[in-house]
């Protein structure tokens, strides 16, 4: 290894990156993804557009509708005198999410213990949303019902619930750290995937082939600029997460930073592999996107906790480096055990292993000859 040679190569890579428009993709893409997904993905349901047809207009029925009106989960409109058909049409046109119909004689039947029936229609097009809305409605109605409940229940078990890590159950807290894991996997991989294949396509790779520059030096020169440029993203993304999305940060920043750097190296290693095996830039870009985005999503823990996985997907999750990094990152943001936890220590070592393995594999496969 010759530091002068490496420095010259690195300087050249930097100049090229800065002068080409490639630099835009380095900083615009990560910020764009975190802002769009961070603001865009909302799993919790608030302000469900609710239409209540109160055919009873009694005190109890009004009591019930007021409960809906006072909840932040519903935007309630109480109407009378519209037909079921018209109301259903409103759901069909995606103007209404929930339709609740209180029958006439509701109060009378209730008082006579005749079990009046409340009909509820929920827009099922968004499944998760539909079942959440269903549970909300059940909750409000049964809660109201239990206040006028006469007989004592047997075996009533209540829950004394403690929400750990994300007390208010905010979507931002749930999603944003996972997004960092997704971005730091995809963006460095795309950039590094292009670096070698671009030289292959344009022919400048011959400068490496025909000089005494070693494979190690060449790889190092390719890695360092991407590594430095994306290391800045570690801080930018941290700022977006804590400042813009107000995600709490309970753990050790050093651990966050260290594991992110290792993770970036792994991602660069993936890109490097792609770059070594492909011949054209467009194939390299498409291949990188395919092999990083989907696993980045599935195994991030954003949509589904790793502990809920089983069978193949559990095995796959353990193969991709995504899971290990995300475990640490959620810990640093929300849990805060840091290096006290043996699991975090183990996962950090695994990340280190991945980074070294990917880079080593990449540099082993780089050829210093044509064909």
């Amino acid at each position, binding site marked *: 290894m010759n530091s002068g040679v490496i420095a010259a190569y690195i300087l050249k890579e930097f100049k090229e990156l800065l002068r080409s428009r490639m630099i*835009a993709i380095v900083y615009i893409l990560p910020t*764009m993804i975190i802002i*769009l*997904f961070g603001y*865009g993905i909302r*799993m*919790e*349901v*608030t*302000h469900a557009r609710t239409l209540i047809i109160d055919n009873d207009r009694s005190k109890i029925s009004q009591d019930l509708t007021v409960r809906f009106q006072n909840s932040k989960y519903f935007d309630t409109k109480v109407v009378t005198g519209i037909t079921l058909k018209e109301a259903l049409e409103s759901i*069909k*046109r*995606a103007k209404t999410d929930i339709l609740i119909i209180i029958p006439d004689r509701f109060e009378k039947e209730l008082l006579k213990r005749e*079990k*009046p*029936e409340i009909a*509820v*229609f*929920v*827009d*099922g097009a*968004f499944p998760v949303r*539909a*079942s*959440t809305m269903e*549970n909300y409605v*059940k909750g409000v*109605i*049964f809660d109201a*019902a239990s206040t*006028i409940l006469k*007989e*004592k*229940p*047997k*075996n*009533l*078990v*209540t*829950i004394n619930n*403690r*929400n*750990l890590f994300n007390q208010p159950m*905010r979507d931002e807290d749930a999603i944003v750290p996972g997004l960092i894991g997704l971005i730091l996997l995809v963006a460095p991989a795309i950039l590094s995937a*292009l670096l070698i294949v671009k030289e292959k396509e344009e022919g400048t790779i011959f400068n490496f082939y025909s000089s005494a520059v070693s494979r190690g030096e060449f790889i190092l020169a390719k890695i360092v600029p991407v590594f430095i440029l994306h290391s800045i993203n570690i801080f930018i993304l941290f700022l977006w997460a804590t400042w813009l999305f107000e995600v709490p940060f309970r753990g050790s920043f050093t651990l966050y930073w260290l594991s992110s750097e290792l993770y970036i190296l792994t991602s660069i290693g993936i890109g490097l592999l792609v770059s070594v095996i492909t011949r054209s*830039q*467009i194939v390299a870009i*498409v291949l990188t996107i*395919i092999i990083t985005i*989907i696993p980045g999503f*599935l195994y991030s823990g954003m*949509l*589904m*906790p790793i*502990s*809920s*996985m*089983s069978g193949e997907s559990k095995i796959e999750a353990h193969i991709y480096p995504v899971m290990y990094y995300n475990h640490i990152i959620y810990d640093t943001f929300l849990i805060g*055990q840091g290096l006290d*936890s043996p699991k975090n220590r183990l996962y950090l070592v695994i990340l280190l292993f991945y980074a070294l393995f990917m880079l080593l594999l990449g540099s082993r496969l780089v050829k210093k000859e044509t064909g």
Partner: protein
Amino acid sequence: MKIFLALITKELIGFFRSWGLVAVVLYSFTLDIYIAGAGIEMQAKNISVGYVDETGGGMSQKILSRLHMPEFQKPVMFNSREALSRSIYNRETMVGIIFESDFEKNLQKYKRAEINLLLDSISATQSFQALQYLQNILLEYADLKYPVKLKIHKLFNPNATTSQFMAMAEMLSVITLLGVILTAAVFVREKENGTWEIMLLTPVNPKLIILAKSFSQVIIVMAGVVMATGIVLFGAFDVPINGSLFAFFLLSFFYAFTSAGIGLFVAAVSKSMLQVAQLSILIMMPLIFLSGAWTPIHAMHPLLQDLSLISPLRYYIEGSESIFFRGTSFVDLWSYFAGVILLGSVLYFYGFRKIGRLF
């Protein structure tokens, strides 16, 4: 017309000769949609449960036996609260239940008792759903006699499977992605291969060339739509079709033109395929996320809600949902058609003019 056909034939030949591109398109319209549908699950399922039982069994085990697949994994016993808590902190267990020693006594004596629940609430939605499942199980166990009956109808998608929904959303995203990239590629490939000038020198009206070239890609995308709808949506996921399939294809056709319009714009400002790839990613990401594919529009940040009004994909997705799940009649789809056609023509004509200037 003969020239128009010749132009289209040429593009289709070019498409089928580049097997890499064919493979990518086939993959996107089949496996990619399948993976998204089968893999991305937002309903809480298979939740890991751990418990500490200080009561010595009985009631507690009866309750635990009610936790079962598909919602819950078999509960795992821990010997101490610390062990349970550690497992939750290591995120191996999502729901931790603690039956305190007086649990059974209270239940027998007062007919009511409390369990302590430790909930890993990082995945907010899933955690919330887990809590609700548990609540429902306990209510059932209590065998409450409510004075009212609730009859809940889930409209349009009674089985409420995420996979159907995700598969469809992914298909619409794929249409956008390929509509843009393929169209842009058709033009940029000519720039890269140096055939651009030859194209300019043919005595054919440039408008006809642009139209034919983009139309050829619309054909490819539409073939993909038919294939994906038949094989993946109907075949693999049994997506219901409550409305008119013809309406869906018609809407898709207009939408394909819209994305082709974006492709024209991308082609006009890009010199290489690399720039096409970069630009497409930058334009498409917001488009897809503002569309309501991932999250309902009215649940978004208010600013994003306003912005989403100018995403043609929004109208396309809402329209498609209405056709498949809601069974909205043709006449009532006019607003979606209007949205797609209006934004589509603006985008298409803008792209058309932009690339037309290069002729």
